[in-house]
């Protein structure tokens, strides 16, 4: 089956530092979605990328889809305590989304 790894599993940063999480696939992905889950909350959709090399920005968040559509990244510039949570990538399989295991971000004030 399709192998997609999300790294790192955990990341602790000082407030103001940057943060990046990566999803890497062994095969080409049709699209990729990113979700955020706050502590005690449920996953909330952030964005979807479908085109090769696509880059989208949401304020301090930058999402990128690789040229070969085999990897994606989420970068947060100058983290804030409100960024705390787990970030998941999700990719299209056979009539379903499959979620990565997530990267749990802790921000030290």
């Amino acid at each position, binding site marked *: 089956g399709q192998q997609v790894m999300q790294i790192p599993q955990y990341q602790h940063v000082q407030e103001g530092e940057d943060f990046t999480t990566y999803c890497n696939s062994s095969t080409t992905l049709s699209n990729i979605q990113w979700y955020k889950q706050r502590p005690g*909350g449920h*996953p909330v959709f952030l964005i979807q990328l479908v085109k090769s090399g696509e880059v989208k920005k949401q304020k301090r968040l930058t999402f990128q889809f690789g040229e070969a559509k085999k990897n994606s990244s989420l970068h947060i510039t100058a983290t804030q305590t409100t960024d705390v949570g787990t970030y*998941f990538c999700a990719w299209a399989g056979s*009539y*379903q989304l499959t979620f990565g*295991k997530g990267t749990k971000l802790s921000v030290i004030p």
Partner: protein
Amino acid sequence: DVKVTQSSRYLVKRTGEKVFLECVQDMDHENMFWYRQDPGLGLRLIYFSYDVKMKEKGDIPEGYSVSREKKERFSLILESASTNQTSMYLCASSDKGQRIDTDTQYFGPGTRLTVL
């Protein structure tokens, strides 16, 4: 705003009991999903449904069944609960686009089930 509700936030059951988890969405979405979430394992798909009375197995359907009698309601059933089914259960729904897998999923608040 899309609203997905789940019948309970917390549930405690005993081994062998039959457990029903209910999920209701108010946006007339065709697709509904049940996941379980465990530390270190992420979200794993149990079952999904793309239409009333239709159901498809996800990655980990063993020990579970589902029911979709009405479009807005998707139920997860544990026929005989076991301790290894202690988990957070998340329901989600999505609209039917060109492909089921490209649609944004909207999640409910989750039910934390403990089986003793």
